[in-house]
């Protein structure tokens, strides 16, 4: 059985999983993993936590799939789970006395990176976390989810021009942050 079944709709996938073939859920994961993870990264900006919660989203989705009455709304439903997990994440932090803000750290280090590259990434990552959510959303949809401008505009409910403006400003903000934090950075 091929693991790449682009022809299957969400309804088909859910029906197959509920029919007993849980392996089809992997298609669901592959179909929505970037979307869910991108959303998490926008809201949480900590890649490690975002990955964990993205995983959790699909696990909960799988466990409760039978409760999804309208299989057409699988995507919205999964995003709803993701939203709940984000909210719960922040609630837990608050109850555990953690500060409102956060100090995101990059997860792991690519061993092939030089120290300077890693430092640059750290700076950029922290600058990214400080951007407004809209700017962050545009960057994540472009760089992480790989969407084109018209798709980004449609998903965010903006005009294409507004997306372009956001992208320009986001890049400018990141550039300024990089220069401020690493004045000697050789761009």
């Amino acid at each position, binding site marked *: 059985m091929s693991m790449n079944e682009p022809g299957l709709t969400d309804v088909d996938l859910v029906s197959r999983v509920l029919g007993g073939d849980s392996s089809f859920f*992997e298609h669901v994961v592959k179909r929505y993993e970037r979307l869910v993870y991108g959303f998490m990264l926008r809201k949480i900006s900590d890649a490690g936590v975002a990955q964990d919660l993205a995983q959790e989203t699909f696990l909960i989705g799988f466990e409760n799939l039978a409760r999804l009455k309208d299989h057409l*709304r699988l995507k919205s439903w999964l*995003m*709803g789970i*993701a939203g709940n997990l984000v909210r719960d994440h922040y609630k837990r932090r608050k109850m555990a006395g953690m500060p409102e803000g956060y100090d995101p750290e990059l997860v792991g280090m690519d061993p092939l990176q030089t120290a300077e590259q890693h430092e640059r990434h750290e700076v950029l990552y922290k600058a990214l976390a400080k951007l407004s959510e809209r700017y962050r*959303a545009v960057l994540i949809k472009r760089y992480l989810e790989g969407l084109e401008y018209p798709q980004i505009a449609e998903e*965010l409910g903006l005009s294409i021009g*507004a997306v372009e403006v956001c992208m320009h400003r986001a890049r400018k903000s990141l550039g300024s942050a990089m220069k401020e934090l690493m004045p000697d950075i050789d*761009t």
Partner: protein
Amino acid sequence: MDREHEHFLMNRAVDGAASAAANPEREELARVLKADPLLRSEFEDLEAVHVATASLFRQLALPEDFSKRVMRRIQGVEVPADAEEDASDGLRLPSARPLQGRAASVVSQHRRRARVYAIVAFMSAAAALLLALGVITGAFSSKPEIESTQPNTAADGRQGVPDNENPKPHRDSHPQPLPKDGEAPKGDSLVTDKPGPDGGKIDPAPVPEKRPDDQVDKPEGSEPEQPVVPDEPGDEPEAPGEVVEDQPTPEKVEPGEPEPKEGATVAGPDERSELGHMLVLNGRVDLVGADGTLTRLADDQVIYTGDRIRTNVNAVVMLQLAGGDVTLGKDTEVSLDSDNTLRLEECDGKPKGLIAVDRNSGHNGSSFDILCGEYSLCLINGATVLERKRNGLDISKAVGFATLTHETLGSLVFPEDSGYEAEVDFGKEYDAPKAVSVLLPVWSADTRSRAVMLAIASPLNERTFASNRERAEVNRNLPGKLDKLMRYPTTTDSVIEFLINAIERDLLDGFILVKMTGEVENACAEVTELAPEVVCYHAGRAALVAENFEQWRDYFYRLMRPPVESKEPKNPKQPAQPGQPEPP
């Protein structure tokens, strides 16, 4: 060439395939960069940021085997084949996933605390019951503590407003557990609107039980940026996943564990979730109690899941919900199912009501749904007005994307262009929506204007004005200009963006800001070949680069002007001169 256009060219070049940048644009950019060393330096910085950002996101990307990891964890987990036993709140997503480490200890601490609260609350409730019994039997002379028929106190403890007194909003009043959920709307299963056993948690993606197969929610691929977020940002955990936190719910209780008792701070069966705020702009609004009593609500009240709100004949009320900004017009009664779903009820037994919904990118959820009987109006983004009449619904979709769905009649899709109306008769097939010039009603425009002012409050406060007079000009006159502008079918997003661009441009002072807003409103009225949304967009673009009002206006109108095609023939025929041969 203006700076803004240069920026667009640069970003498009940097994005490469992401843009429609074709070779002519790259050539144009190359010429500009060659002529302007400063711009070239800026472009190089931009390229560097792009490369670094792309590199960063490669590191942030999900691991290749993410799906495999998920599937490994799924192994051995049984998918419940039958959810009938959970049908009563089958839209919730509990999970008793075991917590680990610090999270588990925090949760257990809060569980213990919750149990203590539950015991205290139970004892308080018992004492109150004894007191009430004492009063009834005449043993005590004090008033009963629990009184649900006081004209000024809602059953949930919210302070009502005596007609002749100043309102005393209890913004933070925590609702007492309701004695019963008798007012849960019945019949229509489009949304599970009964509060769940843990107090109002609703599936993050409320799902109608029946929908026609041809339901069109959105075009494929145009998914919401944000998920549907269920009711509350409040204290109760929403409870998918491992979240048990401080408020365990019966749904999450493992077999064998005692159910938590009801209490003021425990998510008991009747505790509801905070949905947002209500602002009374005009007239009177009442909370309709379970027994039909009306409690007048003050301005700036918190609103909760399950609230049923009725406006009077001259009321305008704004509900600020996570899913959208909702304006209720006169003689309208709604039940709030969640922060992105409300139900339009008959108003005091009469089939009428006026609702306007405004959704922009800052709102949560994939859509905002208004339910009316068997109908469901789903607004993905933009602004829509719905009027309930005796025989049907009138829908004006000003801007954005909306669909009307009926369980058996199918879906009616309002195209995304500005301005469509439909009159729907109950029980009859739909006609296609008509394209019309839609002006939003004044009562809706006023609240949209207020929403815009709220959105720009922060940049406006941070902006340095040269004098108090300048700031006063903005405070005094900008809202009025906005009231007129927001009647046009434009999203609040586009207006907010235009204003923020102008506010952040220090060269444009407060007087100019007000003038610009007025000019945009004029343009919306006069430039009819462009949608107001586009007009606002051009206004924002012009504001990015203008240094004074005249420059802004000049650029603004140039942007809106259609390209002019040359009407001269390519080879004009010259008349032959005497003695000369005729030209070919």
